[in-house]
């Protein structure tokens, strides 16, 4: 059976008709064409699909699209301010915090939420926060550095 979902994604309002079993990540990718949010697993382990739902990071494969009724969603495509990258995006670029790029949208969305909750995380706090995001390329070294650099920059600003 189809359901109708009204939600705001990256500032734009959408009304989407989808199957009841449709996951939020499927709505974003398949109905709205926002393919920056990725699917890397089927057990909610990898974190490639992390988006912000009403300002909090969330694995969009763990939520039915129907549950997002009325929600305000930000995906990786909505993070930059026009051509101006979000400081976290800039930090990942400047610190080589990505290789293949597949986990990167989820990593960045998760990291933005970390600094919102904890603007000055220690290395261990960063590593602990990232437990739900798997990267197979970087060994996390430069991801941790990216987040540290972003935190430093945002603190100085």
């Amino acid at each position: 059976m189809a359901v109708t979902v009204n939600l705001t994604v990256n500032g734009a309002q959408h009304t989407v008709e989808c199957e009841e079993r449709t996951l939020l990540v499927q709505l974003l990718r398949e109905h709205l064409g926002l393919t920056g949010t990725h699917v890397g697993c089927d057990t909610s382990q990898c974190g490639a699909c992390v988006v912000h739902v009403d300002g909090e990071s969330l694995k969009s494969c763990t939520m039915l699209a129907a549950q997002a009724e009325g929600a305000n969603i930000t995906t990786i495509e909505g993070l930059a301010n026009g051509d101006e990258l979000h400081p976290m995006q800039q930090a990942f670029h400047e610190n080589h915090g990505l290789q293949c790029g597949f986990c990167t949208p989820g990593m960045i969305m998760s990291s933005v939420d970390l600094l919102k909750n904890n603007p000055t995380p220690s290395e261990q706090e960063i590593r602990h926060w990232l437990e739900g995001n798997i990267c197979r390329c970087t060994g996390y070294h430069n991801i941790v550095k990216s987040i540290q650099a972003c935190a430093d920059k945002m603190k100085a600003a």
Partner: protein
Amino acid sequence: MTTGIGARVLRKEDRRFITGNGNYVDDINVNGQYYAAFVRSPHPHAEIGSVDIAGAKASDGVIEVLTGAEVAADEIGGLPVGWGITQTNGEPMVEPAWPILAQGRVRFVGDAVAVVIAKSIDAARDAAEMVNVSYTPIPAVIATEDAPKDGAPQVWDEAPGNTSFDWEIGDKAAADQAFEGAHHVTKLELVNQRLVPNAMEPRAAIAEFNSVSGDLTLHATAQAPHAIRLLLGAFVLQQPEHKFRVISPDVGGGFGSKIYPYAEYAVLCWAARRMGCAIKWTADRSESFITDAHGRDHVSEAELALDADGKFLGLRVNTVANMGAYLSAFGPLVPTFLYATLFAGQYTTPAIYAHVKAVFTNTTPVDAYRGAGRPEATFLLERIVEKAAKETGIDPADIRRRNFIQPDQFPYATPVALTYDSGEYGATLDKALALADYTGFAARRDQSKTSGKLRGIGFSLPIEATGAAPSAIAGQLGARAGLYESAEVRFNPTGSVTVFSGSHSHGQGHATTFAQVVSDQLGVPIENVEVVQGDTSNSQFGMGTYGSRSLSVGGSAIVRACDKILAKGRKIAAHILEASADDIEFVDGNFQVKGTDKAMNIAEVAFAAYVPHNYPLPTGDPAQDENALEPGLNEQAFFDPLNFNFPNGAYICEVEIDPDTGVVQIVDFSAVDDVGNIINPMIVEGQVHGGIAQGVGQALYEGAVYDKETGQLLSGSMMDYTLPRADNLPMIKTGTTETPCPFNPLGVKGCGEIGTIGATPAVINAIIDALGDYGVTDISMPATPEVVWRAMQEGRA
């Protein structure tokens, strides 16, 4: 120059990935596409009776259901093997057919039996559940060590003893003799466990057939698009290459698992051609776990003979390597020429002999996974060397130093077929010892003890062969393809440069590194250089990206093409500047007449080549046309390396173990690598970090666990198979020594796999060192808390 060779240039490709604009196969949709879902065997070994597709075919949205019967009727070939091994007895390896949908029998859990093609992915998956296959299970052999046993179930009738091949390398008599005179012999038995690659992007494909033109297009998650076109086109589909295009867009990691011409790609192409449509398939992670080629899976025993001074006299190795149910494309290469040829390590061991038996089991096929054979060799060697150090009481750094190949011995021919290029193994070790503060270790161990922790330090000195290799020699050894790489460097009329390469980045940053090389060679600003890969319609040919070959082979092809550009540019400039070509020198992007201020920029030369008004065009008079030039500035080159290159390093790992729980924490990791000249240090460090994480993964966390009775992959999801997470790893200290490789024009060595190869034994050696007081001399992988805790209890007993 801040963007040329050696500069820490930020990646040109980053922006699309950090803004969500990457273009991976699953992000692509083709108008009117259907969706495929595969029906897979739940049994490791069974006869297929009937395949009842009636229910599935009648299901909502289903267009077609195809089985092995249609594959056979259409005379579609089996999946090809890219490397043939000649056995010790001179016979070829046993190479059973691997049909793209099973014929009569299934041989591993996940073997594809049928495909459902439907209007939506949900409809395809729902209908796949309705395909009713009647299986008659037959006994299966799962474990590597069980395969060669008498009475073991036979995977293939044509492979008695489940043996694909029996192979050896080295001088057995010389090795035996070395042991006769030995002062000490160290013995080791070990298992190099099976791993699942787990690139973060699952495999995906879209096949499109244009019934009017006869053109077949395959979008696929591929490390080697040209090789996939060649192998699938020629051997499976009989689709000629000029009517077959393979596009591999952004690829979300591969680590070997995306090299191969998988059955799913072939099925999609065949079905799309048969039905005249487009069909999409994306693996879910569970499907990836059972169908992506696995890695490693060796069971070995080894002996090292030493003299009284700790010099290595001889090494003997016996290995059983698990191939899985079928031979994957490069499966037979991995436990042979990528493995046993590395047993000299960094040492002068004069006599080495290795025997390898490759066996079939009812499991997912095994092929190259990051390192491919070389991690298995390095793990065995660096474990037995460290064990020998413990047994003889020689410091682990010192025992290695006593056996190093010295810098003045290069090129150095080992007893196992390779000729090493260059290295300063002692200097590399010294740097690692300094980076790790080796002299301070005893104090740190004492400090850990006061907080109730056991601290250990472990060494690993990896060496590997990358950038394979002269095609002619590889052909003699069994390669069924060439191993060169192609490049095209194209000046556009207004001075920008497009570079086409047959290699294909899947995270390695080629768009940046290759642009640095071209910017450096041609004096063109890096922002004016674009690297194009991953489409058989763009780059002429190529063998793709694997085995850490892209820069040393593909980058060298780019250099050769740049050389041709400069040679032609010199002639054009000579004509315009009215000088002899011999008097033209190329400096910082300008062709100038020696000793004068007459010069023109290479961009101006390119413009002249495309707007040839003042240009040595052919006149038609042979007498005048000796120095004539065609318009345009666009050159191709193929580079076939003279030899492998041999990255090497010195890795030191420190661990702390909680004796109550067996939890291992890596507290320090130092890696010094010699990867020859370095184009972009930032990218090299990133490759090393990521490689080390995968090596640590094997040591501590990862392992494909099969149920020996049912053949089910128990660790078949990311909830069951432990991938390293951010809090499992420390910051990694890296350093380099640079001894240029003399066999390629850039002097580079591969950097993509050395981290993985080096890390695993360093971690395990550190754990064993930490548990020395408990009498532990060996530990199995992955060294989970349970494994470590049990070893401590048993060691104590």
